[in-house]
């Protein structure tokens, strides 16, 4: 089961909060309210982020590491914790496996090496390691700063190792929390929208689990996992994938190495796009299926970052000619020769409850009455779990041991050199969202459009002024963008968003080096250089 182990209320009651690769102040503002409640009550906050973000400005300590050096930092912290004898020995012995191997794997990550690889002063690493290990309750939260890397899963494992080392998991106020970037990215996973899973995180390659679904659905399910998004693009490149049906994604703009993505999408034999807006991807499609807005024009559920399954409700009728996702899928099934009847969100949910034990206790009635339930919820008397993995603290241990997973630091794929001396990283701003498809429709007084954010020192170094339009060049492409100075960036680090593809197609620059386990691209680390535009060139 993949999901944040803690609830938001625990963040408020924790003693130490670590935001790792997350600018929650801007990307998860209401989650950050819970962080601030904790901070205002005296919790210590540490932020690990290459940029001194608005979140970092609230922190007791900010560790401005080099982009992509997270494993070096976490391994150095682990070694320091072991060195100082601050590991939670009894928890490790009781509930984990692979500890000795893990110890050996972090042996070379001295504080000095940590400082060398991450750029964070050894003293700061030491301090954070000690505070994290000594805290009664500690929450470790992360976002795409951890996962948009070529070694995303290793990054996550490195953090899990830290929690296992210190026993900061499975207890009230201690846990591991990936903050989800989209309102139902967690729910998509819950429902089996992962290449190797069926609903309820049940593995598709398990004969026993698959058989249960086959019985219920009366069809045979392919016994092998499918492709994740990046894999699909590779399959397109290899000519193995020629038809694509996209629901609510805009990969023509949102994929790393956008030039390649657009080329591959354009080469498909058949592209079907189901979306509520006429996105750039939809514009390339052979068939566009206009869909209702899931959050206000249809009924159903979504799952939040604290595993809370919540109801979304229809408040508006969709515009004429626009149909609910379920309607479209049912109609498609009918035309393919399988009549499923009339779509009914509640009936579909009940079918899920039959098949997914972790959702079984979540009737619509209970979801309404309790205003959401956190999974797992095994039966109708189960309140849902406030936090996960309480079993690890049971005497005797319930279930299997939690394994340490040794991981090694590998620098970002897109190397810096004299030709590409600047590290470009990407992220979101408070008032905008992803490719701007939704947020561009409202008039935000905060919006300034796309820019290449640089430290003032780099501005001086490359002889560019605030507002000056420059060409930004990576190994894959180039864009033209105005410069903006940000004192939260240190020399050598540049920042852009993906919010304004009509102005600047930032993903022309990004690299599609992909994590083999999750399929996530390394949006966070590209190598670029700045080229001044000739004065005569139109701006």
């Amino acid at each position: 089961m993949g999901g944040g182990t803690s609830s938001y209320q625990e963040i408020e009651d924790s003693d130490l909060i670590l935001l790792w690769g997350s600018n929650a102040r801007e990307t998860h503002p209401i989650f950050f309210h819970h962080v601030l409640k904790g901070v205002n009550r005296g919790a210590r906050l540490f932020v690990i982020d290459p940029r001194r973000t608005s979140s970092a400005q609230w922190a007791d300590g900010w560790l401005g590491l080099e982009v992509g050096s997270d494993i070096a930092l976490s391994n150095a912290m682990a070694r320091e914790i072991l060195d100082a004898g601050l590991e939670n020995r009894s928890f490790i012995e009781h509930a984990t496996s692979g500890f000795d191997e893990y110890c050996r794997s972090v042996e070379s990550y001295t504080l000095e090496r940590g400082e060398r690889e991450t750029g964070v002063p050894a003293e700061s690493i030491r301090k954070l390691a000690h505070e994290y290990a000594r805290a009664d309750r500690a929450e470790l939260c992360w976002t795409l700063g951890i996962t948009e890397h070529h070694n995303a899963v290793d990054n996550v494992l490195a953090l899990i190792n830290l929690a296992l080392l210190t026993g900061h998991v499975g207890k009230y106020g201690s846990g591991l929390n990936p903050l989800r970037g989209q309102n139902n990215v967690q729910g998509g996973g819950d429902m089996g929208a992962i290449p190797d899973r069926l609903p309820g995180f049940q593995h598709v390659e398990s004969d026993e689990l698959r058989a249960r679904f086959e019985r219920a659905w009366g069809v045979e399910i392919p016994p092998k996992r499918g492709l994740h998004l990046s894999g699909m693009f590779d399959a397109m490149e290899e000519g193995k994938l020629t038809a694509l049906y996209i629901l609510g994604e805009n990969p023509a703009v949102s994929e790393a190495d956008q030039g390649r993505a657009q080329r591959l999408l354009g080469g498909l034999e058949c592209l079907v796009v189901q979306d509520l807006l006429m996105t750039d991807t939809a514009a390339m499609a052979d068939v566009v299926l206009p869909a209702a807005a899931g959050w206000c024009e249809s009924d159903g559920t979504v799952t939040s970052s604290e595993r809370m399954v919540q109801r979304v409700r229809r408040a508006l009728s969709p515009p004429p000619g626009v149909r609910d996702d379920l309607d479209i899928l049912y109609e498609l099934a009918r035309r393919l020769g399988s009549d499923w009847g009339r779509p009914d969100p509640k009936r579909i949910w009940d079918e899920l409850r039959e098949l997914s034990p972790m959702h079984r206790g979540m009737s619509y009635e209970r979801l309404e009455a309790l205003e959401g339930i956190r999974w797992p919820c095994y039966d109708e008397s189960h309140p849902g779990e406030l936090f996960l993995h309480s079993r690890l603290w049971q005497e005797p241990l319930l279930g299997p041991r939690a394994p340490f997973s040794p991981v090694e630091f590998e620098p970002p794929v897109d190397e810096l050199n004299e030709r590409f001396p600047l590290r470009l990283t990407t992220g979101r701003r408070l008032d905008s969202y992803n490719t701007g498809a939704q947020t561009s429709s409202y008039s935000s007084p905060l919006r300034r459009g796309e820019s290449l954010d640089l430290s003032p020192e780099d501005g001086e170094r490359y002889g560019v002024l605030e507002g000056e339009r420059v060409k930004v060049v990576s190994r894959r492409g180039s864009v033209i963008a105005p410069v903006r100075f940000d004192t939260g960036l240190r020399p050598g680090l540049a920042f852009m968003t993906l919010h304004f593809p009509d102005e600047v197609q930032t993903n022309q620059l990004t690299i599609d080096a992909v994590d083999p386990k999750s399929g996530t691209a390394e949006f966070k680390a590209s190598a670029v250089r700045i080229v001044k535009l000739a004065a005569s060139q139109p701006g």
Partner: protein
Amino acid sequence: MDLHIAGQSPDRDERSAVDSVLGPLQAGKVESYHLQQERPDRSKRHLLLPVLHAINSRVGWISPGALNYACSRLNLPPAEAFGVADFYGLFSMKPRPRAVIHVCDDIACLIRGAPAICEQLAGRLGPPGAAEPSSGLTWLRSPCLGLCERAPAALVSAAGPKPWECALAPARADALLAAADQPEHRPEAPPVPTSRSVPQQGQPGLRLLRRVGRLQPESLKDHLAQGGYEALRRAVELGPERVIREVMDSKLVGRGGAAFPAGRKWEAVYRARSSQPVRYLVCNADESEPGTFKDRVIMEEDPYLLIESMTIAGVATGCERGFLYVRGEYPLAFERLSHAIRQARRHGFLGKRILNLDLSFDIEVRRGAGAYICGEETALFNSIEGYRGEPRNKPPFPTEVGLFGRPTLVNNVETLVNVPGIVLWGGRSFAAVGTPGSTGTKLFCLSGHVGRPGVYEVPFGASLASLLELAGGVGGSGRLQGVLIGGAAGTFLSPRELDTPMTFEGTRAIGAALGSAVVMPFDDSVDLSRILLRIAAFFRDESCGQCVPCRVGTVRQEEALFRLFGGDVQGIGQAPLQLAEIGQVMSDASICGLGHTASSAIQSALARWDEFSGLRQGLNPDH
């Protein structure tokens, strides 16, 4: 926190003003965020008020560039800092001339020449505050400056590299203009003998005023030569519990107006030591009640007495840090106290290891900035902490949750300076003076139509009549119309009430209160309706604005008074009922003592309507 500081940057003057309080900026500390690994210190907010003073007196107003810089140094949001600065009367939030003449037009000065000064200044400089910033000079009306014994009073301030402030009383328009015309040079204030303020000077029997006029106020040597620090040594010998016992035995009650037993506060703060090691002492020297100037005289003429008294209180209750909050309009008192504290610290009477013993106590002086409400103890805490001077809800009381959220002993100046005597001669001997309900001696502030205005010290028990007699009888026409006791928040008494004993219990018995011990007689020429309107305007202006009953009530009270006295405006019949209801909601439902007493003087005068001829005159037609 993620501060948003936009707009103007500081110029050199603004920067240096802020740095003069906070020290120079360390390179890379604020302006290069990416170098900073740790959260900026947010615990310096209490320096906001001193920083604002530095800015205002350097550049003449609180300019955006300076405020932005101060906020970046203190890690404070500009909107909050602006809200704090805009609260205080002495700060200007828009450009204004370097030199400002503050003319007191409050009740004591109103009947002693202030209107003429205002008229002359208006003739020269236009209406108050109207002058262009470039003109270099402007004038403003001011609430009571605490110089009532030498009315009319004015305060001249000049901003610049060498800012100065100078109180002039009695003031004349030409002298004020001459002083303000040369903001580079601090004017020589004409020497005023201390006997002008303390007519009893040198007389036997004085306790609190004993040394006034007999010592050099700046001189620690003089203080020591005249018995200084004997009381502190004695207090150390006795030990905290015995000192508190003596204060209890003395039955000393607070002289600030609320008349709460001092010993009980001391004991509560002392007792809190087990659970709350950090506790504070606060001396409330924000003497702002119109007609009150006794604390000013003590602070100006015998500053070491107050410093020693605070030290005794700190040592006895175990507070290691004291704050002395002096009214912004008292530049001389601020100067002399600051000097005295430096001297005492240098000679081992403050700081670590006082008297070479294992005792620590130190004092920080803070200047108010023109807000009567900051005399309310919890508003004073907020002001010290760098917040708006808005009173807090009670309970909890300061002895539990006070300054910076810690148990706090807060006493007024006059209360504290009684302590050395109590320590030296014993609580019982102190209690033997005065009446059973009001022990010791009392300082009274006599001004208005009285023969010899000034501070008078008498044992409790004297009647109002005998006080007037002591001060040379009724002045002006010699025919008494009425007496205001207790200040703007006090009570008007009629001539038939002159035998009222000026004790806590005696005044209480006739529904009045001693308050800050103002005694201000008015002769029969005074148009009392103008006095009442001035009092109403005072409260309207000084209400902090936090709670509805006071914020709106003080405005409606003033309007209803105009209707009452105006005669020809609609609603005349309703005015008395409205005034009564406004008074009741203010005293019943306001948060703090300001609102509770904002109608007191007015209601007391209206209750004596038939006895005050001056009320029935109504407004002058030319007004």
